[in-house]
């Protein structure tokens, strides 16, 4: 049995966990902020910048799929 496939599956599963939680937290705190203060909605562009910083980890995992 080819264990590489299993390794890739485990890596995708655990590696995507962190960034997924991170992006969820960013979105939830943005919605919280907008709910408290609707004027904060103008910082939507900043949300994308922070998401891009978090997303790097997820992309590293995805790129590793094709290297191992």
């Amino acid at each position: 049995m080819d264990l590489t496939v299993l390794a890739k599956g485990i890596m995708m599963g655990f590696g995507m966990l962190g960034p997924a939680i991170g992006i969820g937290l960013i979105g939830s705190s943005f919605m919280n902020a907008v709910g408290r203060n609707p004027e904060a909605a103008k910082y939507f562009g900043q949300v994308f910048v922070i998401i891009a910083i978090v997303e790097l980890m997820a992309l590293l995992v995805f790129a590793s799929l094709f290297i191992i």
Partner: protein
Amino acid sequence: MFTDMMTLTKFVATENGPPIHIIPGELFHIGGFAITNSMLYGAICSLLILVLLITVARRMTVKPKRGFFQLVEIGTDFIINTIENSMGSREKAVRYAPFFASAFFFVLFSNWLGLLPGVGEAIKYSGHPVFRPFTADLNGTLAASTIMIIMVQYFTIRESGFKGYIRHYFAGSLKNPATYLLGLFEMFSELTRIGSLALRLFLNVAIGEIIIAIFAYLGSFAAPITALPFVVLELFVGALQAYIFTMLTIMYLTAAIKHDHGSAESVSAMTGEATTA
């Protein structure tokens, strides 16, 4: 049932898997140096951008024009506003705008020109595709981010002098040994910034290419329909990554000039932007 599925996949997908490349292919050698496809396309794109932007700059008028002129004008204005919001002065923004605007347009057009139909597997030479987006090559983005960080150091030295530049790293009391340790960490963080900027841009573009290749492969004869949503997504991602690449460099420069100590990737630089906006 399973064998039926297998025959179906064989019927639909004709090749052996989608073409996935993480490293660029070598096309030919000039005096021992390998010329890769992304180097070739990067040079072509740079020439194209140079010609286009110089033409636009020559023909720029006070009265706004339509079409491509407007795109360049919006982009430049956007970059000037971003720098102004970050640094808090219009004069500094206009001074640094040429460098950051050209970096922004280079990354933007490299990303977008990489989505043209001829780029990729369509045209091949010696087993490798002839064209590959410049930003889908780690060497290319590493070179770009190294230049950005070196220019940030240069601007900081010009802005606050060599002594101020060193004091930016070794802030606080000079009798405290922790100052030196933290200073070394700050210096090391410049290197990690090079890596993170390069990796972010490279991975976004390269993975976009991979996803388009996978969905074009899955679609087989309907490839234009299945791949189109991801091409549109990549248009958005390309613009976003160009913005983030420039934005983060502007934030590094702002943090280096302002002498407030904290990682530029933290939210402190952004809240500084928020208060001045």
